[in-house]
């Protein structure tokens, strides 16, 4: 397992990968069922016995929203070292993901093995477009933003936070960023942050402040918040162009990635061809929202992420509320093997449906 996670990724052909993942995932599901009666009930209600799984798509996926409603754990409480929380922007309730040492170690290893294939393996100066508060070392819980920064910061030699938090709002610390520029001019640096914060806080304030940076070799890795940016008509192209102008780098050095706190350790970065790839220890399934069958390339559907990393929570197969599409398998021009896909959008509610469009209402609400 450790070797599968640590080695160079994107090298295994899809069919071979699925054959390798199936027994591992099936065993992990069995272990989860043995540990948790609730998970045993879920897996036995929603699918066949794990011993009968004929493919990884037979594993019943747990909807990502269940991590907001249940404390889903597959290890004893005393082994849990940290609880990760999602940002709770959509529903107001965060996901809570229990992490033990083993999972945390594997997540770090997994992230390293994925990222080094995109940004290189060397550690370098890192500018985080956020406040240091989101990555407090002593916190028992960590937000998705904090967790992403912590994961990527493995590649940081020195870490500088570009923003300050004042009364819950983020403000650019232009002096600190200018000092970072002075200290590391001409070096290859790494920039990381939450997509929405980079655009709505950093880029706007840096532009207003007339901040001009020059980091030709910078890699800017970002994720999250596309829903709000799309609503503001900010496309990936507009984003990359705007951010690259601030740092004076080529737009292709601005790298979007797809990931979530429920599957930390597995991130899907845009390759040179603009596709997101599943690493060898994880996979992507696009399911038809009605039939729940696996869709082939070119058919959009719900994104499901499978991965072998977690031993503290049931992350073996998680179905999201995101829509994506498999673009191809084993034949991306970038040379990476396995499935590659595109994220399309979050599932959104259609327009209101008329006189039956109501919610159950508590009696006291109507007095």
């Amino acid at each position: 397992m450790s070797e599968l996670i640590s080695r160079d990724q994107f090298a295994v052909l899809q069919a071979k990968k699925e054959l390798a993942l199936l027994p591992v995932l099936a065993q992990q599901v069995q272990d989860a069922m043995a540990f948790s009666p609730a998970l045993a009930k879920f897996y036995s209600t929603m699918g066949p016995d794990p011993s009968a799984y004929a493919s990884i798509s037979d594993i019943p996926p747990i909807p990502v929203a269940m991590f907001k409603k249940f404390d889903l754990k597959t290890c004893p409480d005393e082994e849990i070292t940290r609880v990760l929380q999602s940002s709770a922007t959509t529903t107001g309730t965060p996901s809570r993901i229990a992490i033990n040492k083993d999972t945390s170690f594997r997540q770090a290893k997994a992230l390293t093995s994925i990222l080094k294939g995109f940004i290189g393996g060397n550690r370098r100066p890192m500018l985080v477009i956020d406040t240091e508060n989101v990555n407090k070392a002593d916190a028992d819980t960590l937000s998705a933003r904090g967790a992403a920064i912590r994961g990527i910061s493995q590649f940081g030699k020195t870490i500088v936070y570009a923003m300050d938090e004042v009364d819950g709002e983020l403000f650019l610390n232009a002096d600190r960023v200018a000092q970072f520029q002075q200290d590391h001019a001409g070096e290859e640096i790494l920039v990381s942050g939450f997509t929405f914060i980079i655009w709505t806080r950093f880029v706007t304030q840096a532009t207003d402040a007339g901040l001009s940076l020059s980091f030709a070799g910078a890699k800017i890795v970002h994720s999250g918040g596309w829903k709000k940016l799309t609503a503001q008509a900010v496309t990936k192209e507009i984003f990359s162009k705007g951010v690259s102008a601030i740092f004076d780098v080529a737009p292709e050095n601005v790298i979007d990635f797809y990931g979530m706190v429920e599957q930390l350790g597995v991130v899907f970065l845009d390759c040179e061809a603009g596709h997101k790839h599943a690493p060898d220890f994880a996979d992507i399934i696009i399911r038809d929202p009605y039939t729940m069958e696996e869709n082939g390339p070119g058919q959009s559907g719900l994104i499901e992420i499978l991965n072998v990393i977690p031993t503290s929570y049931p992350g073996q197969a998680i179905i999201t509320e995101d829509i994506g599409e498999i673009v191809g398998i084993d034949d991306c021009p970038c040379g990476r093997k396995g499935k590659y896909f595109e994220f399309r959008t979050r599932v959104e509610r259609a327009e209101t449906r008329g006189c039956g469009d109501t919610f159950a209402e508590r009696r006291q609400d109507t007095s």
Partner: protein
Amino acid sequence: MIEIVLFAGEFSECGCTNVESIKPLMPALEQGIDVLRGVKKSDILDLFQQYSEDLIKDEAAATIEGVAFIANWLRKSNFNQLVEKNFHTIEYLEAFVGDKKRLKAQPRGIVCHWIAGNVPTLGLFSLFQSMFVGNGNILRVPQKNHDIMRALLNVFSRTIISSGLSGADLLKSVGVIYFDKADARANEELSELADARIVWGGEEAVKAITGLPRRSHCEDLVFGPKYSFVVMDADAAGRSSGDFTRAIRFLASDVILFDQAACTSPHVLFVEKGGRSVQEIGEVLAEEFRKLAKRFPKVGVDQYIMTRIINARAEHALDPSSSVICPKENDWTILIDDKLQLEEPIESRTIFLKEVDSLQDIIPLITRKVQTIGCSVDEKEKLIAFADAATLHGVARCVEFGQMHLYDNPWDGMLVMSRLVSWVTLYYGD
């Protein structure tokens, strides 16, 4: 910009007729209203009867969801009953009735309808009642239902009776239009034309439309967001297999029709303890869903609702005190739990099944938003006691399984046609 589907008897088949304002078109509609008011009510009833028969015979129209209901509703015997409920006698619509102080029900004028999109045939229920009492009508119909409206009104247009009266004659008094819901100018224009406004829709739509400027005499009929559920008492749940299965079959069809998006669609089945177990009832219901799903495959899958189904299934599969019965695909779903509450509707063939100690336990859950309760209660006195308590708490209809979607008068507590007339008096001696 306002899209014209039909105006003063003229169909815009391609849907490409757009106007800035409908005011210039109103004189033609006014002429159509004059034609309508010259027609005897008995002829209109005959025309509706003929239309009912033509709808069922028309191959294209007969396949439209809900057409069987509207065809049945338009039958002369049924429509006569509606008229009697509203006016006691049809004479009030045609003459001054009474001694000395004589009463007549005059049409209000122009009725403007904002039709919701969840039930394709909804616009017709609204239109034909208003048309019958002599009003001109302009309906704002959601774009997704234009083809259905065209198909149904085309059949009406071709319907003709022995007196020579045709649906085409009456459609001269009708406009079917569309504009974006955010188009303030078009909304205001329609509102200001209205002598009565009929609004069907969710909370947001109702608030937006009723807040539009209107004429001081304008009458509003609001059919806002409503919720429905079903109850089964212990005796009904313990019936012999054949009777029990028949009731469950009716319930399954109530759930499936209109993709469970109508205000009359049931979302929860409460079963009183003492008959069959909820698990056993769930299995019988599942079998009926299986049969219906084969006959009526789901169309127009909504991704948001599918994710809600996926989540609800998982929640009930994970919760130790709940269970779920469903196929692999997100078609029908039965969610069994013991939470005594009305659930947020998931729609698209998803029903919660809950056991209660007594039907009376449900009464405190009822709000003014509950419209219809499907009742399978064997003992008449028990049914009356339940219905009395439920309606006191705001429920508008208590009906049998299989009749939840039958449009009737009163609706949401209103005798609709009587609200679409002005009651006028004439005094003179014998």
